[in-house]
């Protein structure tokens, strides 16, 4: 069953949605609510589930006599960087004060919960045993684009159920396939997508807001995600993990309900790179946060080591004057680096691409900041000194 409501206010929209989707919620039902929290600091609009939307869901559940719990794992960080833990995420998401109004909502750091094996086809996944303790699991998502998967939504939000180590594995071993396996194995009871404001462009972190003014949901994750993608002007055919999920479930890809067609907005698709400052372009591909955090540590190096004048000068020269293209993740082989511009690649996922195009690589998986930082600085020093010429093949 699918339902869509305009968002006059989050509370009204959610109440109407849930009244339609859960007409017979038994009192005392144990409900796990899994918000979409991916922001690491100061969330942009639609980057996270908004506190208002979360409050509306919890309010409705409490009013119906349910016993809600809020759960999320830590966000992935390099092994030598502290967890971005559930308690930190609560703060980042702005939910600390909100939850004071819900003293009986159980808070669960899923990262610390025991894990059990779940299977989907040939894939074996680690998922919290806690999931089995609930009568209902409600997954919250947002209308946003994604540079790795084109579309985020409910299935991508499920990655907040898996531990740190599994995040890394998903990105390394095939994000689309394992995402489909995850959605299949952790199929939620209900999926709610917040769309009062969506995100277009370089989502899920760097995109721009799109006022959309709706919320939708349903008891079929695939239907909800396909409809949500359709509302953003993205055909589900273009979203690999949705196609794979449909195949795993032996279903055809659902389309957008015809009556929702007038609500479609054409979201700007993500480009292949993020412009960082004026001179640096980062091509994240399907890389995970360990590569991204480790690579960005060169800036911290410059701030923390001002006495290493030559190294800092090389880093500043590369980042602010000469410019640099940073490549991560599994890049398509037919995407060459810009001719005549300096490039470097980071992480094992980019190894074959880097070797094919003659781009210097800082390899490893998972990347550790303390290992990558000196290697990156050394590489940038050599690039700056002209010891590593830019690739000449161009597009």
């Amino acid at each position, binding site marked *: 069953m699918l339902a869509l409501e305009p968002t006059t206010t989050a509370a009204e929209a959610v109440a109407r949605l849930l009244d339609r989707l859960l007409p017979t919620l038994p009192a005392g039902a144990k409900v796990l609510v899994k918000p979409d929290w991916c922001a690491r600091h100061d969330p942009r609009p639609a980057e996270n589930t908004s506190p208002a939307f979360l409050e509306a869901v919890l309010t409705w559940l409490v009013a119906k006599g349910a016993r809600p719990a809020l759960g999320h794992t830590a966000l992935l960080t390099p*092994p*030598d*960087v*502290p*967890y971005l*833990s559930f*308690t*930190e995420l609560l703060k980042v998401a702005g939910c600390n004060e909100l939850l004071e109004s819900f003293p009986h909502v159980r808070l669960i*750091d899923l*990262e*610390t*919960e*025991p*894990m*059990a*094996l779940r299977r989907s086809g040939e894939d074996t996944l*680690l998922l919290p*045993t806690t999931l089995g303790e609930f009568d209902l699991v409600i997954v919250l998502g947002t209308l946003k684009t994604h540079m790795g998967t084109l579309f985020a939504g409910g299935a991508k939000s499920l990655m907040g159920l898996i*531990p*740190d*180590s*599994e995040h*890394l*594995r998903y990105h390394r071993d095939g994000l689309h396939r394992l995402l489909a396996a995850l959605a299949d194995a952790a199929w939620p009871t209900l999926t709610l997508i917040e769309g009062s404001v969506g995100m277009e462009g370089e989502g899920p972190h760097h995109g721009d807001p799109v006022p959309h003014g709706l919320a939708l949901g349903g008891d079929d994750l695939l239907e909800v995600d396909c409809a949500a993608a359709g509302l953003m002007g993205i055909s589900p055919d273009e979203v690999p993990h949705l196609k794979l999920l449909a195949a795993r479930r032996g279903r055809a890809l659902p389309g957008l309900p015809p009556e929702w067609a007038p609500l479609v907005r054409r979201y700007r698709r993500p480009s292949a790179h993020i412009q960082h400052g004026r001179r640096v372009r980062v091509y994240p591909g399907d890389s995970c946060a360990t590569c991204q955090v480790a690579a960005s540590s060169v800036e911290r190096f410059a701030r923390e080591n001002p006495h290493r004048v030559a190294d800092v000068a090389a880093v500043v020269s590369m980042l602010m004057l000469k410019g640099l293209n940073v490549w991560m993740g599994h890049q398509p082989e037919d995407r060459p680096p810009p001719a005549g511009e300096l490039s470097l690649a980071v992480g094992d996922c980019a190894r074959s691409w880097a070797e094919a195009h003659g781009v210097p690589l800082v390899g490893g998986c*998972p990347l*550790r*900041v*303390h290992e990558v930082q000196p290697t990156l600085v050394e590489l940038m020093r050599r690039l700056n000194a002209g010891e590593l010429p830019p690739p000449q093949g161009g597009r």
Partner: protein
Amino acid sequence: MRIVLTGATTPLGRRVVQRLLALSPRPELVLLVRPEERDAWRGTMPEAEIVVADLVTPERYGPALVGATVCLHLADLSQADDPRLLEVNLKGTQSLLHAFGAYAQAERFVLLSTALLDQPAPDDPDVGPERFGSMWLATRAGAEARTIHWARRLGVETVIVRAGHPYGASGIEGPLSGWLDAAAASAESDGRLSVEGAELPLPFVHIDALAEALTQRALGELLPGERRLVGSVSRADAVGLVTTLAAVHDRLCQSTERSPHRERPRPRLRRLLAYVSRSESLPVVPSFLRRPVVRAANPAWVTRFGPADVGGLVDALVGGAC
């Protein structure tokens, strides 16, 4: 019996492996070894299944845990500024718990921790260094908290051995290990391992004693000084066991018929130096003769010297031997 062991390439781990392999019937051993440890391995490889993987990649070593019932988690980095503290001590422990709970038939989990933590593991599994004075202690406390939570949730018998700094592995690993061993043995023999007002001796333990205690505990034999943690959670039928160095040390002395060294009379010069170095009423005593401040997590010490700091401990110990 199939036993999983981490930290097998350390001096302590090797001793535990030797003991386990000497058992009859011999248990199946699965040794989780980091790639760099595997490359640096010296000596004969033990007759065990060796799985080369980082602890934070459970998907790689998880399948090797199938059928295992016991896990001895001995991997521990203790250099205060080691950048891998988080990876091995905290995240590695968490990932190992995930994998052991999911892939193995978990019956018993033994975590090697440190006697420098003598307060209960905090409820917050993400404690920071500001609370414990060092990142190392914070990672150990976090690992204990996560282990206890995991044990309570799964109902697996779980043992946390809060051992002291092991000595007695001279000449095996590292440029300072000989100095450290000599310092520890020396400090113990002349009584400097006891502190005025402290209830416990300084946290040092002979490596053979610790290896023996861990081996026996992995097989299910209770250690002296163990106490059961009774959880308030309904499913908390897990047993958390905490022991201190003192208990382990006493056990060693009994089991190996080795009398405590401190009963021996101290040489006169050493007694004089010990007196001089302890004396705070002699302002003329040169600073290099003063006994260095050695920190431990004994409550009396914490009150007196501030939070425990393992870096300070090691430095002070080596300095004392010099």
